[in-house]
């Protein structure tokens, strides 16, 4: 028995695809939920303004004594170690104003931002001599910012739960045991499941992308091919993560619990709904473990800021390494039958 026989892999891959395509209920549900979610989001969050003014301060910490402006109330002062990045945020309206308090004080403002206009007035009250730098750029609407998050979230659920429960069901009803009696190897079986889910996830994500982009009038700033490559790697990493759990266990409760244990921290900490900027360092540090965090960071960079391959290379590498590691672990710990 060879380790990898493509004919066997294709047989299982094809049968799994048929099984999914015939299952109309699941298929419609897979497409409908995220679509409804985005439409809902654009209604709920579309027009809402953030309650605070947000001002970036160049440097690693904000010292109130350094400048009188820093004592203003109802303004959130956030330290910005990377000046270029911070200037970009002003352009994108995610900072209302950026100030460098080292004398002579300089500040960056986007004339297109209404909140920037007001914060500038506040600043000039305390320091008439601050030097003005102008930045231009369109605001990133919340719904635009949310869009990559929704794509990523849908991808995460599709990958983790899609393979997890399918393999578990096969094990429970004895189908896996039957396959074990054939020359099929664990690696061939798992690869077929991964590929089938990958194709499905990419098709669904593509439909979602173009559907939602049309609804909310969105255009990706960067390369669509790069974005597609990123989504493939992200999906691979998360399908393989799902397999590490489905590889071994026979209890739906246990697998369900473990999958929830994985998905909820990612839901909250990977930056689907809100940016982690300004959250405590340990939260951001934990978030770096999740593949979804890397996928979303890279997706937002490409979709919103037009980042190219070099800018997201380290995220791509992280996703590729985790995909390989998870798949290897899954094949190693795979069980054909119930304990």
């Amino acid at each position, binding site marked *: *028995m060879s380790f990898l026989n493509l*004919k*066997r892999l*294709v*047989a*299982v891959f*094809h*049968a*799994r695809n*048929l*099984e999914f395509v*015939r*299952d109309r209920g699941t298929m419609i549900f897979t497409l409908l939920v995220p679509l409804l979610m985005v439409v809902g989001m654009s209604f709920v969050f579309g027009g809402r303004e953030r309650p605070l003014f947000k001002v970036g301060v160049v440097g690693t910490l904000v010292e109130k004594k350094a400048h009188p402006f820093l004592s203003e109330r109802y303004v959130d002062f956030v330290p910005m170690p990377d000046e270029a990045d911070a200037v970009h945020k002003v352009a994108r309206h995610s900072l209302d104003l950026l100030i460098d308090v080292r004398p002579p004080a300089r500040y960056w403002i986007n004339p297109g931002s209404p909140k920037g206009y007001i914060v500038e007035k506040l600043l000039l009250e305390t320091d008439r001599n601050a030097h003005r730098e102008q930045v231009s750029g369109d605001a990133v609407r919340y719904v635009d910012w949310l869009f990559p998050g929704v794509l990523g979230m849908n991808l995460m659920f599709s990958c983790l739960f899609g393979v997890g429960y399918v393999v578990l069901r096969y094990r429970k*009803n*004895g*189908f896996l*045991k*039957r*396959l*074990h*009696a*054939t*020359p*099929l190897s664990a690696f061939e079986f798992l690869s077929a499941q991964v590929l089938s889910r990958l194709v499905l996830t990419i098709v669904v994500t593509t439909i979602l992308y173009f559907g939602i982009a049309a609804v909310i009038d969105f255009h990706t700033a960067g390369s669509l091919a790069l974005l597609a490559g990123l989504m493939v790697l992200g999906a691979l990493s998360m399908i393989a993560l799902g397999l590490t759990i489905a590889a071994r266990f026979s209890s739906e409760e246990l697998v369900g619990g473990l999958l929830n244990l994985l998905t909820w921290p990612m839901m909250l900490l990977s930056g689907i709904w809100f940016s982690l900027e300004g959250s405590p360092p340990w939260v951001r540090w934990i978030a770096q473990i999740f593949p979804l965090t890397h996928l979303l960071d890279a997706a937002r960079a490409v979709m919103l800021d037009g980042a190219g391959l070099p800018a997201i290379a380290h995220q791509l590498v992280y996703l590729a390494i985790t995909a390989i590691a998870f798949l290897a672990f899954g094949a190693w710990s795979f069980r054909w*039958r119930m304990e």
Partner: protein
Amino acid sequence: MSAALLEVRNLVKKYPATIAVDGVSLAVPEGVCFGLLGPNGAGKTTTIEIMEGILSPTSGEVSYRGEPLGPRFKEEAGILFQKTALQDFLTVRQSLAMFRGLYDRGLSVDEIIKLCALEKLEGRDNRKLSGGQQQRLLLAIALVNDPSLLFLDEPTTGLDPQARRNFWELIQSIKARNKTIVLTTHYMEEAELLCDEIAIMDKGRIIAQGPPRRLLREHFAEVLLELPKQEFPEAARALPLRLIEASDRVEITTDDLDGTLRTLMDARVPLTDLRIRPPNLEDLFLELTGKELRA
């Protein structure tokens, strides 16, 4: 005897609470239909699953064509488990095509469909098959690689009598293709009809082995007399007869029919419902273990 196609030696399978198989040795010659008989819990399924390479034994060896089970065995064996679910939403033909794709050699899907009389069902969803139809599909799947060795684990359990009879006919037509078959069953008539050789298992051990007719001849040179239990007077139990009590009847084994009948009549045992018949495997099992097979 020709060299065995499949051989097991000193098989033991222990579970934390029980010993399911306790020192079983068997040899299955090529071209033979070999039956593993015994009541539920005798260790038949555990034994056959070890022979199939699905379960690993605690100790003991299994060899196929003189070698340990390996890739060649997987390529050449066909297996019908007691219970197997197939993928949802796939048709009979698609399921067969999937399994056919897993083997290098074998019959074409069309040939299999014809062999197992699935022509009218080939477009049907797996889940919409009756018990007998499903079992026929699973047998067809076990045959996709045109196996040299076919395992059938209780193939007709749960089927109605008509479906069971159809299934037997199917297995006989496969036997005619000179396949080696290993079969487990707790239906004695199934074993008598299909098997050339049987091994009777009880409590994880083999208690008798050989061709069915020879086993019967060895254990019964006699005929069996059956009487309903409620018509058998208490006093008659003291008579010098070889009695076995089953749940609803009393069985008397004898090689002197005249003498036994005279004894019974003298004891005024009512003989209206008396039946005289040659012994079958069911009786053999009763004789060997002192209990009924389907108790």
